């Protein structure tokens, strides 16, 4: 005869019901936290993958911030280049006027003064600061991009190229153009010229009372050609900047797509499958309540009840 020990009955009932309670508890946790992983040891591999993906999420916030910074920088560059273009086209008008043979020397000197004041505008545009107070066209140099020495000559202080900013794994963009990149160009006569010195020289020549009419007209005409070449150089740079802004837009679309992909992965790796979990929970709860009900029934089944 097998002896059914009372304490063994209670012990195994408690053991089984505790197990059921634990697993319903776990399912409930999964539903309420919408995460399959309460602890990383629930599924170590999934937890490690989740950590890597969450790290990528955090790192991508820097990419987003850098993308925005690059975009701001390039947009400002583009706007400033437009300003340059406007000034240069006004200078072209003035140069065209100065090339007019009917003007006398003093009229040309007056135009020269006007050009000289535009020159000052160009110099301050060339020294524009970006949002963080650095020279917009100075590359990675610090301080002003151009400084004027005692004799009034301009010197470029910046670096040869603008800084390159990483926008995520394998993606990067050059966040601006340096002064020499668009202010230096090859003049009509085939020599290397600088827009600022062209304007400065033109103004000086026209203002100089000793300049003859013929010399003034010749200077204005060659100035017009150089200004044309300079304007072309500016619009080339603007095209480059525009292309970079377009690249940034492409990059942010890619970043968004990657982030979406990652969150889908996160949901499938560590997220709760609501339908399956809820179904499993109701199944477990049915089993648990059956176990509890049958336990109460069997526990009441004792011969002692019939003793009187």
């Amino acid at each position, binding site marked *: 005869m097998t002896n059914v*020990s009372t*304490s063994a009955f209670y012990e195994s009932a408690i053991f089984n019901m505790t197990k059921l309670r634990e697993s319903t508890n776990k399912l409930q946790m999964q539903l309420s936290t919408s995460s399959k992983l309460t602890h990383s*040891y629930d599924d*170590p591999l999934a937890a490690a993958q989740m950590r890597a993906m969450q790290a990528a999420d955090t790192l991508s916030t820097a990419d987003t911030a850098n993308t925005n910074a*690059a975009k701001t920088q390039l947009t400002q560059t583009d706007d400033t280049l437009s300003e340059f273009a406007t000034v240069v086209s006004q200078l072209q008008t003035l140069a065209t006027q100065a090339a007019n043979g009917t003007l006398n020397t003093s009229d040309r000197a007056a135009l020269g003064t006007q050009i000289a004041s535009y020159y000052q505008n160009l110099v301050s545009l060339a020294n524009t600061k970006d949002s963080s107070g650095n020279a917009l066209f100075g590359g990675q140099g610090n301080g002003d991009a151009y400084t004027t020495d005692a004799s009034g000559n301009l010197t470029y202080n910046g670096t040869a190229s603008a800084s390159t900013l*990483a926008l995520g794994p394998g993606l990067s963009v050059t966040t601006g153009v340096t002064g020499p990149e668009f202010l230096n160009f090859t003049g009509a006569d085939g020599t290397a010229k600088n827009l600022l010195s062209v304007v400065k020289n033109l103004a000086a020549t026209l203002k100089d009372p000793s300049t003859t009419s013929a010399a003034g007209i010749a200077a204005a005409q060659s100035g017009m050609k150089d200004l044309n070449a300079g304007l072309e150089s500016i619009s080339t740079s603007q095209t480059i900047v525009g292309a970079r802004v377009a690249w940034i837009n492409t990059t942010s679309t890619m970043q968004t797509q990657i982030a979406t992909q990652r969150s889908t992965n996160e949901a499938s790796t560590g997220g709760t499958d609501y339908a399956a979990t809820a179904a499993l929970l109701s199944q477990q709860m049915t089993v648990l309540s059956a176990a509890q009900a049958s336990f109460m029934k069997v526990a009441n089944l004792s011969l002692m009840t019939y003793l009187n």
Partner: protein
Amino acid sequence: MSSDMISIAASGAKAARAALDITAQNIANASTEGYVRRTVNLSEMSAVDSRASFGDVSQFGVRVTGIIRNADAFLQTEVRRTNSDVSRANTLVSGLTNINDAVENSGVFSSITNYQTALSKLTASPTDSSLRANVVEAARTMAQSFNVAHASLASAQSGQQENASAGVAQMNDLAANLAQLNLRISSDTDPQNNRATLLDQRDSILQQMSTLGDIKTTFSDNHTVKVTMGGASPITLADTDGTTNTLAMATSASDGTISFTLGGSALSLSGGSLAGQQQVLTSAATANTTLNGIADALMSAVNTNQTSGADLTGATGTAMFSGSGAGGMTLALTSGSQLATAPSGSAAKSQIATNLTSLQSSLSSVDIAGQMNDLMFSLSSAVAGNTTTRDALQSIASNAKTTLATQAGVDLDTETANLVRYQQAFQASGKVIQVSSTLFDQLLRL
């Protein structure tokens, strides 16, 4: 004749009383841990070679010849063996969980990621003071997270060491008690006596011992027990003659692991909470070494980079972290301007950030975050793997326990039936006395 009848009935009543007492004892101890169901062994008293004449009754009733303790030694050994395994696995799982939580909850991994993110943000504008401050704060949080991880690990370790040392003390107490008990059992020769209680105590002590360590038992004919520990060359813990050997624990000062000796000889344990604590501490020491290695690799990468670059004033950078190991990691920089983002020899406020980008690439080539993720993965998979083992061992132990309880435990229904049966037996014996008294009276009235 009738006096015989009375004494026979009296012996029956006495036997029924004894059986009722045992039943009551069984019911009272139905849920006592370690209690083994008793039954009364009765035997008939009769004389075969009595000199009485033919036809005389030569039977003298019944007597209690002993109290039987219904324990199966094999099942008890099984329960102790599986209990050792479960106890070791439980201790190991909970200890490993503590280690895992210590590293995970310290937030080291996310602080490393945040630091790298801050560096990445700084590349957008290397001279920006708020971005620089952001990097310094991220580095501070990272250093503190490493400190917290180290401190939590250390406290998990010292907790295990204290538990192990308490376990050793308890084991020695139990061994002393068992030795005493052995002497009492060997001197107790009266079968009517409370030997069953002594044996219950003996088994309960053995059960407690098995929770602490994997013990081997050798029972003598007089029910005394010799307890040995250790695998290949067992060492005696408590002997049948009342002598004991002392279990001692030594803690390594360098890595906090523990080792045991029994009676002066080295002892290797494979079961029980003491073995579990030993394994936990070994894992903790490994985790600590790895964590220190990661912290040192990180500090060396950052400090080397700092000293090979120029800070915001153009001066050569100074080390960012001082100290060594996860616990000693301290932020040495006080301001964001001390970050050496520019290459060595740069002018003040240089926007050239090649030193910063080389730090980024050296951090990702050393793969600090990846190393940390690997450490956390190895810790959590150790917990997961041992939990599976623990669950299996628990089912085995639970089965063994239930089997023993089925064989040795009290069943209230059986006891209730016995109660009724022995009550009736007692009443019947009473009736016999009454009948014999009536018969005697009748004889007197003749």
